């Protein structure tokens, strides 16, 4: 199987400091393989090096060390660029062009012409939910609308590999759902999607594999179900219409928090099936409000990783 993306010891130092420039390691020897057809989540807290990696893959910056390949060719190759799409973080385009003109220009760069080009631009703008405002100058667009235009331009050439740097950022809940659908649609068409995010829920809903980057270093890579930190550790059961003596009698009191009038949240360990407790409670007249799995969030994972990682100062050398 050909790889969609391969990085080998990819390393990037930025020069920091106003007077005496010192190298600051933003990305440290990243070696990563992404297969074709994967929806790959590139996760990490702020400053982890996600954007740095994507910029290296787009050859917007050059690596200090190491190499990167897309579809088996070195990054920056014009023939490879024909087959990929890229949504930058916080995209920005031209103030005085309309959305239609911008996408028309980009489509032209891929050789689309005339009616075919107009059709391509039209369908993409429909797909990302830009209506008649497509004839307005982009400086009149809101942040979320720009983000949508950014998504459309990333897909203008029907790319085989799509790189999205925080595709959900700046979108309303409806927009986020649309983007999720869009990514799933791309997956169904057999395309590779590589996207960065710091939101675990996005990754869970979409990814076949994830990589977690903290402090410029790769911490984990695999499918989410393989990453033990995210296994379910227990259940949170919220019930109403129940009285304290009942809970006391069932021996649940130490694990219960009162959250309102006759409304309680009960934490259950993984080996205690919630259905049993629930049926016992419903007999007494309790009603189920919600039942949620308890597990580490991405945030918990980050916090644990960050506390175990050397402080940022140690990334500055010299």
């Amino acid at each position, binding site marked *: 199987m050909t790889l969609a993306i391969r990085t080998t010891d990819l390393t990037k130092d*930025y020069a920091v400091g106003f007077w005496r420039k010192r190298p600051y390691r933003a990305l440290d020897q990243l070696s990563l393989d992404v297969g074709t057809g994967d929806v790959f989540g590139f996760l990490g807290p702020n400053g982890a090096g996600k954007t740095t990696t994507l*910029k290296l893959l*787009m*050859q*917007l*910056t*050059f690596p200090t060390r190491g190499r990167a390949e897309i579809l088996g060719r070195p990054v920056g190759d*014009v*023939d490879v*660029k*024909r087959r*990929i*799409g*890229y*949504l*930058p973080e*916080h*995209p*920005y*385009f*031209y*103030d*005085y*062009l309309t959305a239609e*003109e911008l996408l028309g*220009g*980009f489509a*032209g*760069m*891929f*050789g689309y012409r005339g009616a075919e080009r107009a059709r391509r631009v039209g369908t993409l703008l429909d797909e990302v939910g830009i209506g008649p405002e497509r004839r307005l*100058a982009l400086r009149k667009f809101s942040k979320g609308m720009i983000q949508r235009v*950014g998504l459309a*331009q*990333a897909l203008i050439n029907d790319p085989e590999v799509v*790189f999205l740097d925080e595709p959900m950022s700046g979108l309303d809940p409806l927009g986020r759902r649309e983007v999720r659908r869009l990514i799933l649609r791309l997956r169904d068409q057999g395309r590779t999607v590589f996207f960065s995010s710091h939101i675990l829920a996005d990754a869970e809903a979409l990814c076949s594999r994830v990589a977690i980057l903290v402090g410029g270093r790769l911490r984990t890579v695999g499918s989410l179900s393989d990453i033990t930190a995210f296994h379910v550790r227990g259940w949170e059961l919220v019930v109403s219409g129940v009285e304290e003596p009942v809970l006391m009698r069932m021996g649940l009191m130490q694990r219960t928090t009162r959250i309102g009038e006759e409304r309680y949240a009960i934490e259950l360990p993984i080996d205690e099936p919630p259905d049993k407790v629930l049926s016992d409670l419903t007999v007494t007249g309790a009603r189920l409000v919600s039942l949620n799995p308890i597990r580490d969030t991405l945030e918990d994972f980050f916090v644990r990783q960050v506390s175990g990682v050397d402080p940022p100062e140690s990334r500055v050398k010299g």
Partner: protein
Amino acid sequence: MRTSRVVAIVAFNVFKESVRDKVLYNLVFFAVLLIATSLLLGKLTAGQEVKIIKDLGLAAISLFGVFIAIFIGIGLVSKEVERRSIYSILAKPIRRHEFILGKYSGLVLTLLVNVAIMSIALYLVLGYMSWTEAEEFKRAWDAPAADPAMLKAIALIFVELMLVTAVALFFSTFSSPILSAVFTFGLFIAGHFNADLKHFEGVVDSRVAASVARGWYYVLPNLAAFDVKAQVVHAQPVTAGYLGFTVAYGFVYIAMVLLAAMWIFSRRDFK
């Protein structure tokens, strides 16, 4: 094939952006300036007004052009880097030097349209003056009012604008708009006094100072060579040989500056 396509697209976007950014408003100023002056002069200086209008018109074409070249040129690349619009473009099938070429062509196209419209306006005003002027005054003129020889001056002005644009773009590939403006403007001024540097040894005693001056003479563009306004207005000849040589000099200089800009831009990190 792909190259010319992507270059044309980038160029056309520059043109569209600058037109919508109200760059062509300066044409209105130009027209008003020309017409107001001609009306005013008509009452004052019998026989001389055509020369004055030619002088003023050609100087304005050059000056307005230089302002556009510098003020758009300095932002052409640096603004894209600052606002990061460059990110989505460079991910498309375009090489970095093609991007530079497109940006340059776009501004040259803008200048071409601008200079063309101004020239037509100038010829119209001059034609009108000739039409309304009494025959006995016309006989005193060195050259006809709507003199085709002015096109020589305009052509050289245009090559000079192309050169200034290339310089502005060059600075724009690695420095901020403000610094680029300072550098380009400095080079523009120095370029007009450049010819003086060649004979510096006649002015100072120091051999070192003289050779430094000579060095600068070869590095800086010789912009005074592009200024034949006075000759044209006073009906002195500008030979085809001089025109050809000066245009060739301009193109060689532009090519060098653009190559340097492409070289720098191709190695840049966009952080």
